[in-house]
């Protein structure tokens, strides 16, 4: 799969410089976000990769091959291109839209139909229901899914996405972003994604390249960028997102609730099950954590196993984000945070994390 390299790429319009000596390596199999205020040159940069815009000077290489030497039409057919919802052809059905590139490549009708069905399945739309619909018969979110399906039609290694979810309302945008992340975790394409939405960038990007006035300000892995912004511009751009993200990316051990007591199931069976003022009892036998018991539910018990709440164990070295993910995925109320030796550091629950974030963001 391809790596995209931009070397000293400059684009001038008259005496206005849209992109100024941009050097950037976009790694393969990952989502790289081009982020910056409007007019920073991010869209121009994207369009130079499929030669919708020709650079004034500099070189762009895909897998080491200069794209200037490639045939632009063939280059574009080999790259998926997703733009805002206006990008669907209104006079084509969903099948027609998805089949655009395959038709240009000369696939036969049956193969195109099969591919369209497969891709609709992939983007979670029922083929029988959607193949023959026109874009004006779809919701904004559905149109965008079809747009992504169209870009994937000829199985391109590279996807260029130009503010694809920009015209969608916030709630649907979030679900499209989740959909895209799920898709990408299966497909591992090399994605270049333009947005001016910092939240979207942090959520979707493995890497973020921040641009300003045609220059590259900083390009880093997303967590690196959040933790070590290169300068005041980046800090300000990331703003509140940065503090929220930073909080979530800090170590869980720092925030654990230590109001608990540990006792063995044997102790409890013997009737020693009082946690005093602590809200919680963690039960363990030797090295094995059996579970926890909320205060009040049980003080003494003949068979503690029955009253024990299911739980997840997380490492104190993990991030708060990982704790949130673990809780959401497992549906458990509480996670028991342990140190590398298996010692209980404390517990975390969703309401607690929400309180931590509220406190941290003020």
């Amino acid at each position: 799969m391809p790596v995209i390299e931009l070397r000293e790429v400059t684009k001038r319009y008259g005496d206005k410089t849209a992109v100024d000596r941009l050097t950037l390596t976009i790694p393969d199999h990952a989502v790289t976000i081009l982020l910056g205020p409007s007019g920073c040159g991010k869209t121009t940069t994207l369009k130079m990769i499929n030669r919708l815009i020709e650079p004034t000077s500099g070189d762009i290489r895909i897998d080491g091959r200069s794209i200037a030497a490639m045939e632009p039409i063939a280059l574009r057919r080999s790259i998926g291109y997703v733009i805002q919802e206006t990008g669907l052809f209104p006079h084509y059905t969903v099948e027609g839209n998805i089949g655009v590139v395959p038709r240009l490549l000369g696939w036969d009708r049956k193969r195109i139909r099969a591919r369209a069905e497969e891709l609709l399945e992939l983007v979670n739309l029922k083929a029988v229901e959607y193949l023959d619909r026109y874009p004006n018969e779809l919701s904004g979110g559905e149109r965008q899914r079809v747009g992504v399906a169209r870009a994937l039609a000829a199985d391109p290694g590279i996807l260029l996405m130009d503010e694809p979810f920009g015209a969608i309302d916030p709630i649907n945008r979030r679900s499209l972003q989740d959909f895209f992340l799920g898709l990408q975790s299966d497909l591992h394409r090399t994605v270049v994604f333009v947005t001016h939405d910092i939240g979207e960038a942090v959520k979707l990007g493995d890497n973020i390249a921040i641009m300003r006035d045609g220059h590259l300000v900083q390009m880093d892995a997303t967590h690196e960028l959040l933790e070590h912004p290169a300068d005041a511009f980046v800090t300000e751009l990331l703003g509140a997102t940065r503090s929220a993200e930073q909080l979530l990316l800090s170590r869980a051990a720092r925030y654990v609730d230590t109001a608990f007591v540990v006792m063995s199931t044997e102790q409890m069976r013997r009737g020693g099950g009082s946690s005093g003022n602590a809200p919680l009892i963690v039960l363990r036998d030797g090295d094995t954590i059996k579970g926890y018991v909320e205060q009040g539910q049980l003080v003494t018990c003949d068979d503690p196993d029955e009253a024990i709440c299911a739980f997840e164990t997380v490492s104190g070295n993990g991030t708060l984000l990982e704790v949130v993910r673990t809780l959401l995925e497992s549906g458990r109320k509480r996670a028991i945070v342990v140190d590398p030796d298996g010692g209980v550091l404390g517990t975390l629950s969703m309401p607690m994390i929400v309180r931590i974030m509220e406190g941290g963001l003020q």
Partner: protein
Amino acid sequence: MSAFRYLAQNWPEVGAKLSQHLSMVGAAVLVSLVSGLVLGILFTRPGLKQVGQALVGITGAAQAIPSIAVIALIFAYTGIGARTAIIALSIYGIVPILFNVVSALLLVPAEMLEAAMGVGMTPVQVLLHVELPLAAQSIVTGLRTTVTLDISTATVASVVGAGGLGDIIFVGLSVVRPDMIVAGTLLVAGLAILSDAGLALVQRNVVSRGLVHTP
């Protein structure tokens, strides 16, 4: 009623006039359509769009020129006969088609063109698969205007000896036969209504369902 009697009694002659009228209009519409499309496409290509924009203004205003003026002007060069009528109708009929082709092609959103190029269409493919289908509704509307205009204007072309249904009306006028005038008028109107209905059907078939507003 006497108009119908006239038609029934003089059918072979009337039929000949009708077919003259039809071939005159048919030839002119064909020339107008082809040249209107070619010019319209040409003047909406990158680099020539400003010419196209100017053309929208010019053709908009040109629709105000009376048809008889065009026929008279061509007559001054080519004299009596159907040729004069066909040339005049062709020129006159370009105007609505060119106006609609140019304005519809200019209205295709730039993002749509970019999407088409972005997926790897050649300029010709962009034109055939995106621009013309998106402009189809408007282009056929222009064609309908031209056909209706030509059918009525061809009647006037009788004065330059072009033949056609106008002959019936003008003869009726000179010998004061209202039945002939009405008969000729009925045929011209019927022809215009029928051909417009036919083109409405064509329009429904060439315009994608995706472009028709669904409530």
